[in-house]
């Protein structure tokens, strides 16, 4: 394991410190308990809080700012944060109109945010929660902890953030976030494993000629291991279940999001994007918007995920609305 880190114990705190130093105009860092809050915010805007284990950067701190999150709570690497950090972040995000928690559907995240929500409610903050669960790799949610929250999280945060910014109330922002979640599906692939700093060994083992289809963003297993294939074939394998599950009708408009897991060059993501966009065109869908890059990662894992979001006019407008965060910025 070679990493640009100091003591593995301090990776999260030092990285967040560096983040704060690099973006002093956007965020304030609260060191203990650790959370990141947005520098300027108006009053009476619905607050958006998200968080989860670290290791998925730029998620979530990179999305704190105008038009997106008001606070982010990073846990240890791949470990959800705890209520004692989520509570002050929730209080900081509240400007009088309540707070939406955007939570990726993992048992640890769900439980910790749930406890924090109970406690913040007890302190007088109105709290609602949307669980993001867009990962179609988890097939039967009756017998599992349910689908995982992956790439769709970025889209939920952007679009709900825009709704909050335009003045929607908590119920409306929550409904928008839920609508994005209900209309986005994702599936990922790993070409190589990642190594959690304090573990020091790869989270799983993949042979030189194997890939894992349906990987999670913590290196959790997916649907199956298959021999290495060409990019076009892999893109098809990821997109097919996404489309099946999303049940799009020809003529519908979508946002196509090809996300890198951290260790894959951008040039390869565009090769995957190329094939995915061809396939969508063949099926008669219109790609209205696109996003390509490392937006929700798994440390230095090689691989990617493909997300498709069904768009309507309102979601498209909210997507296009100005945003100014460290990792996503336009219109301002």
């Amino acid at each position: 394991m070679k990493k640009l880190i100091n003591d593995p114990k301090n990776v999260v705190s030092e990285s967040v410190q560096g983040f704060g130093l690099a973006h002093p105009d956007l965020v304030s860092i609260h060191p203990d308990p650790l959370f990141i809050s947005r520098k300027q915010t108006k009053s009476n805007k619905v607050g958006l809080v998200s968080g989860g284990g670290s290791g998925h950067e730029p998620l979530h701190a990179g999305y704190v700012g105008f038009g997106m999150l008001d606070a982010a709570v990073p846990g240890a690497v791949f470990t959800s944060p705890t209520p004692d950090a989520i509570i002050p972040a929730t209080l900081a995000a509240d400007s009088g109109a309540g707070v939406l928690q955007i939570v990726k559907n993992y048992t640890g995240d769900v439980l910790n945010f749930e406890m924090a929500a109970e406690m913040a409610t007890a302190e007088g903050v109105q709290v609602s929660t949307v669980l993001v669960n867009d990962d179609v790799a988890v097939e039967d949610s009756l017998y599992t902890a349910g689908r995982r929250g992956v790439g769709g999280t970025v889209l939920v945060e952007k679009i709900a953030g825009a709704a909050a910014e335009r003045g929607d109330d908590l119920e409306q922002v929550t409904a928008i976030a839920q609508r994005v979640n209900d209309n986005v599906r994702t599936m990922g692939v790993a070409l190589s494993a990642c190594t959690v700093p304090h573990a020091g060994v790869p989270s799983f083992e993949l042979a030189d000629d194997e890939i894992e289809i349906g990987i999670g963003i913590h290196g959790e297993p997916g649907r199956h291991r298959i021999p290495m294939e060409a990019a076009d074939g892999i893109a098809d394998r990821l997109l097919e279940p996404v489309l099946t599950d999303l049940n799009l009708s020809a003529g519908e408009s979508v946002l196509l999001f090809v996300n890198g897991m951290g260790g894959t060059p951008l040039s390869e993501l565009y090769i995957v994007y190329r094939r995915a966009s061809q396939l969508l065109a063949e099926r008669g869908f219109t790609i209205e918007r696109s996003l390509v890059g490392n937006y929700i990662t798994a440390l230095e894992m090689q691989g990617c995920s493909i997300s498709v979001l069904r768009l309507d006019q309102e979601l498209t407008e909210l997507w296009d609305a100005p945003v100014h965060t460290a990792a996503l910025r336009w219109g301002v």
Partner: protein
Amino acid sequence: MLDTNWAVAWMRASAAIIAEQRMALSELDRLIGDGDHGENLDRGFQAVVAKLDVVYNTPAEVLKMVAMTLMSVVGGAAGPLYGTAFLRAASATSTAANWDAETVAVALTAARDGIVARGKAELRDKTMIDAWTPAVEAADEAVQNGLGEMEVLFAAAAAAQQGAKDTEPLVARKGRASYLGERSAGHRDPGAQSTALLLGAAAQTAREAA
């Protein structure tokens, strides 16, 4: 009867055994989860130990501190689950300065019920519940058989250990391991194993207190 000193000793022993088994627990978690269970709990119990030097008046006071500490330090699934368990045990025993056999059973039942309330796991979902529920049942039976508090804890610990072992063939239906589906069979659940360690520490320290 088990007093506050025992509760403190139990937590020191828990921290020691978790530290010793840190790598083993994480390895179990690596096989069917994300490999951090030992790390997470060890961080939590180190923080607990750092708070054991102040004066506590009841076992419940100790357990409440443990609950708050684990909740704020452990994270992941296990943090809120163990946190809730210790909090419920503290609430259920808050008036008792000393625990008799019955109090022990009451505490274990409250802890288990708290975990179920939070995590909604059922028996044989391959979670820590598969250690807790046999432990509660064994404790109840021991109380009914008129055994003392130390024997109740030994019965609970042994049942938890057997319960942890019995998770091995199960297919996980809760928590991170459930993503593995059939591939989760053949491995022991890390949370069930840590439960067995904590109850084992309770029994050992009860013997030393006796």
